């Protein structure tokens, strides 16, 4: 999985490319989120437009960090999740835990 992080208006925009699943992909994203939290960055937009599939490991990672970051007054918001990612999050009942946006801009602006 490719992970690209850029900062926009005090918001970390994390662009993911590839399946988010157990193994190197989930391990890399965990490291990215730990580093963000370590730096005090708790406003995160996760762009999932190029993530065709998220497995239970990836879902577990997202909801765990969502809880941790919310405890610190921040949030993880999802931008452009793929159709199957949305279906999967809905199947396990966690879709409504996330705010979802059509693009990065609106997700970033929602933190203002």
């Amino acid at each position, binding site marked *: 999985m490719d992970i690209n992080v850029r900062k926009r208006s005090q918001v970390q925009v994390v662009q993911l490319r590839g*399946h988010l*699943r*157990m*193994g*190197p992909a989930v391990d890399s994203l965990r490291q990215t989120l730990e580093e963000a939290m370590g730096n005090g960055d708790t406003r995160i937009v996760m762009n999932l437009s190029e993530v*065709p*599939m998220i*497995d*239970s*490991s990836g*879902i*577990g*990672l997202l*909801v*765990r960090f*969502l*809880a941790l970051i919310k405890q610190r007054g921040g949030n993880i918001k999802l931008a452009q999740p793929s159709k*199957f990612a949305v279906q*999967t999050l809905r*199947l*396990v*009942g*966690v879709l409504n*835990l996330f705010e979802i946006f059509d693009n990065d801009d609106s997700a970033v602006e929602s933190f203002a």
Partner: protein
Amino acid sequence: MPNEISGGSENSELSELLDRSMPANSEAIAAVVDSISETLGKLDVPEQKRLEIALAVQEALANAVVHGCGNDPSKYVRCRVKSAPNGRIVIVVTDPGPGFKADGLSDPKKSENLYSDHGRGVYLIRQLMDEVHFERRGNEISMWKY
């Protein structure tokens, strides 16, 4: 290993598409899942159905690696894929572990479980596939997609 696969209705007419053994290492899962997806793509299985099968296999292999083999790469997980003449697909994942009772799993959609970082794999498999059976001592799962 028995040749008979539970579920479906055409066991005697199944064609083998793939038979892989992989070391119980989480990094080995992706290659098996991707090869299954590629095989199904060549059979013109629609993308939505391929994604659903791929995710179910991903979860079954992850369970086999983590729970069946304790992440011990000296152990092996076997994954077989077969098709029936009517287009139904069955995937069988077998690990050498003691097995488990799938009926005792908690509901991941309960409010107290929503933020849990685990416990969704078997639930997802059951939602994504049309028929799911745990065989032998609970260390083999057969998953049918119609």
